[in-house]
């Protein structure tokens, strides 16, 4: 018993080390555990699937550097999917660092033959979080008179006939905090009734589940990297997210193990207390 307790109470640094190892090993040597696609991911896939060639989709990069690893793979695969449907993608950011990701995505697709200003455009970043989202939804040109490359929006064919948020066929918003789904629902979806689909870091998934059920969201990638992997599988475009899934599995097992260790300590302490009590009398 005492040995077991000592083992379970091991210094947290050893647990850290174990966690680090179980993440690194499968990255170097993948195991290939299979992945299933969830229904909320499928809803998102279907929303993008229903876009017709020429439809305009708004892609919102509302994510921070820290949340990027979780959400960026989602945005990447959704953009790839939309472009493969012949839809046109308008990129915008309301979190400053989101602009870096938008720029990277645009550069990536320019190298692959998509035309800037026709197939896609990068409007830039607007400060002011929810306020800016609200202003943007009302009148896009008031917030972005020009795109990031400094030309007036009317000079681009992709922006023809797009005045406010209601002119998009779909809004795909990727967020790690504020503004996020709640702000977009409040400022945009409730007012303009555009289909809104969101991708968020895993912690934000459950909180936004009610919005999916109430129909305020038409799709939700609520599981971070895992949702991205599911999306990649569903549209048959395997990428970085799929590769990381084994490390995910082992990491989870490690944390479950830590919870069990904690309970072993607890149970032993409790039984020790019980056995002590009679002697006190």
């Amino acid at each position, binding site marked *: 018993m005492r040995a077991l307790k000592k083992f379970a109470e091991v210094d947290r640094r050893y647990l850290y080390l174990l966690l680090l190892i179980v993440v690194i090993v499968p990255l170097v040597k993948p195991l290939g555990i299979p992945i299933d696609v969830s229904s909320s991911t499928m809803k998102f896939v279907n929303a993008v699937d229903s876009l017709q060639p020429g439809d305009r989709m708004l892609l919102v990069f509302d994510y*921070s550097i*820290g*949340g990027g690893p979780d959400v960026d793979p989602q945005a990447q695969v959704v953009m790839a999917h939309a472009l493969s449907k012949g839809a046109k993608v308008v990129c915008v950011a309301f979190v400053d660092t989101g602009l870096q990701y938008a720029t990277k995505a645009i550069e990536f697709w320019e190298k692959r033959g998509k035309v800037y200003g026709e197939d896609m455009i990068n409007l830039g970043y607007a400060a002011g*979080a*929810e*306020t800016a989202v609200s202003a943007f939804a009302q009148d896009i040109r008031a917030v972005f008179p020009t795109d990031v490359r400094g030309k007036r929006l009317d000079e681009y064919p992709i922006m023809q006939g797009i005045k406010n948020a209601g002119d998009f066929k779909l809004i795909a918003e990727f967020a*790690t*905090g*504020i503004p996020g789904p709640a*702000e977009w629902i*409040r400022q945009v979806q*409730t007012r303009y009734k555009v289909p809104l689909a969101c991708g968020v*870091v895993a*912690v*934000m*998934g*459950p*909180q936004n589940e009610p919005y999916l059920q109430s129909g305020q969201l038409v799709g939700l990638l609520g599981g971070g990297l895992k949702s991205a992997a599911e999306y990649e599988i569903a549209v048959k475009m395997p990428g970085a997210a799929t590769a990381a899934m084994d490390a995910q599995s082992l990491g989870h097992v490690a944390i479950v193990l830590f919870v069990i260790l904690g309970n072993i300590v607890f149970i032993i302490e409790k039984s020790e207390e019980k056995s002590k009590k009679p002697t006190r009398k």
Partner: protein
Amino acid sequence: MVAGKQATFVIFILFLALLVYYMMRARSGKLPFIRRIPGLDAIEEAVGRATELGRPVFYVPGRTEINTAGAAQTIAGLEILEHVAKLTARYDTDLKVGVAAANVYPVADAIVRQSYLEEGKPEKVRPEMVQFLSNEQFAFAAACLSIMNQDQSASVILIGEFQAESMMLAEGAAMVGAVTIAGTSRTFQIPFFVAACDYTLIGEEMFAGGAYLSKDPGKTANLAAQDIGKIFAFLYILIGSLLVTIGYKWPVEWLKR
């Protein structure tokens, strides 16, 4: 009137009317009963502990700016800060406040100064007490970890709107052995606080904080009005969903008007 918002507007106005009604009632001396909220009771204890140990209290009023929709949470955090600052002033305990939003900094600073002034100890205020740390999420979190470790904070109180850094602040505080009290309405951060903190103010409990601690009649009255609002929600959901079950759709349709 904007279509789709008519019912909301009616509910909004009725709720404001309730707030005013209860406030007037409170002015005439009729204060509502308030149940115990352990997380808020613990605040005094937390300051007491810091006093005994001679180590500082570290306070974070969330990370959200004051001109955004998260402002109400920041304000709730600032209201509780006011109370904490008065306690630390009274007991001559060291207080540190970490601020993440540039436009919250002057407000937090003013509140701490005012609290010390009201306790008759304006000379105890030092610039280090209210620090703007960083508006970048994890620079802020890292700075908080450093402060907690350097000061060996005895008590850490986190009340306001938090995002992903919540876990780091809460567990970081536990690692230095601090008593931790946390509250937020950001639903996906509450579980971390529940798991890692000694006391957690869940959602609306943080908004009750200002009233509960200050015993201010106006604020206390708000709680009574809020309860009426919740009873309305409770009954509307219960009866409305029952009506929907037996085929009447108007409870839903009315809200959509």
